[in-house]
């Protein structure tokens, strides 16, 4: 879900995704490389992401991922599910 969210703002390469999540979460979350790439590739296989090769900011060849319509839908569904889950957890934790 976090990866999908990172890509919702526009195409990014793997490193960009990891950095974005790291920064945006105020260094709270760190995506392991060992988990990131299998996840990206799996989502590519499932048709949620589209990949193409392009030049990075510093002119290196990099693989950019972007959301497909399928990925958008999935992000939407996941976000809703997460909202429900987190609010439920919060609810439970606030109970006295």
């Amino acid at each position, binding site marked *: 879900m976090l990866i999908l969210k990172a890509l919702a703002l526009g195409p990014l390469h793997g490193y960009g995704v990891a950095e974005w999540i790291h920064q945006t979460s105020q260094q709270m979350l760190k995506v*392991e490389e*060992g988990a990131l790439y299998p996840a990206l*590739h799996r989502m590519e296989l499932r048709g949620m992401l589209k990949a193409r090769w392009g030049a990075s900011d510093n002119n290196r060849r990099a*693989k950019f991922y972007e959301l497909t319509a399928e990925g958008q839908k999935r992000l939407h569904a996941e976000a809703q599910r997460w909202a429900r889950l987190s609010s439920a957890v919060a609810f439970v934790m606030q109970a006295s």
Partner: protein
Amino acid sequence: MAPNLHEFLLRLKALFLKRRMDRDMADELAFHRAMLRDKLLREGVPQTEVNAATRRTFGDPNRWHERLRELWQFRSLENLARDASFSARMLRKSPGFSVVAILTLALGVGANTTVFSIIDGLLLRPLPVPASDRLAVLGIHQGNPLPNYSFSEPLFRSLEHRHESFSEVIALSHTTLQVKGNAGSENISGQFVSGDFFFALETAPLLGRTLGPQDDHKGGNPAGFGVVVSESFWQRWFNRAPDVIGKKLEIDNTVVTVVGVMPKRFIGADPLERPELYIPLAAEPVLNGERSMTAAGIHGWWMTVMGRLQPQATLEQANAEMTAISSAVLHESTSDTGWIADREKRHFHFAAESGSAGFTCPAALPQAAGGGFRHVRRHSLTGLP
């Protein structure tokens, strides 16, 4: 696009562009490492430690690469291909073992194929005669789980003229005949056949005539016993001479006359025997002399009996009739009342079963477990087994 199809197509692409995909994955990971390295440098990690630090953060790139590769594979398919190539390598390494293994397999497959072809040709195919599905094989039931397929001469002679469901009831018995040639005698596969044998099998001769009821008399017809030969015998013995009809053959010291030649496709009624000479049943006591099975009368069990159903008759009708006439046949065959009483106590009766494949038909195959094909228990001189 359905997600599964999409995935399948991508995997397929990965399979064919394997090298490129592999390079791309490596590039992707290398790019990430390079970016990480730049970042660490920016954060003030000293030049000397940056490589170690990158490795610490990133982990083992080869491992990640392997993980990605697996993701894109058709797992089982590619493992199979790898196994195959591994086996091929191992086989090449030890050629002696390989040759033995391959030869063993080849022989095994070959032997099985051969045996099946033989069984198929001999036992499963219908006899090459017209309307072979109208043929039936007769058996004797007398309290045993399996019927007995051997008949004695008096039983057959009685049956031969006592039927209505069958147009003909015939008997055959395989034998080996000694035929005198220019250079000594030769053993030839032959068959004693009853008078209606060729009528029941409805096959016309290639030359001359077939044997008929007039040949199946004591002493044969006025000219002595006639014999019908197969096409292959005609070729081998007479070199296909067109004037073979009327030629004499000396068989078991008895002179007989060639009356006809059967075409090659005709194999008789028993696909396992394929005789070259057909000789009347009535000639048996003459040819076999002291060893005559005919002379053993009711106690000589040596012939196979078959019938051709009348055009309108069914096998069930034939069976009913066979059961009905069993007692009469029994009484006509012998005057030994004690023997008859013993048979009747065991519910002696005849039965007909389908015989389209000739004497050894598929119906007999399941019985193989019980002691062989219908070929067992022929030529026994004791009472019914």
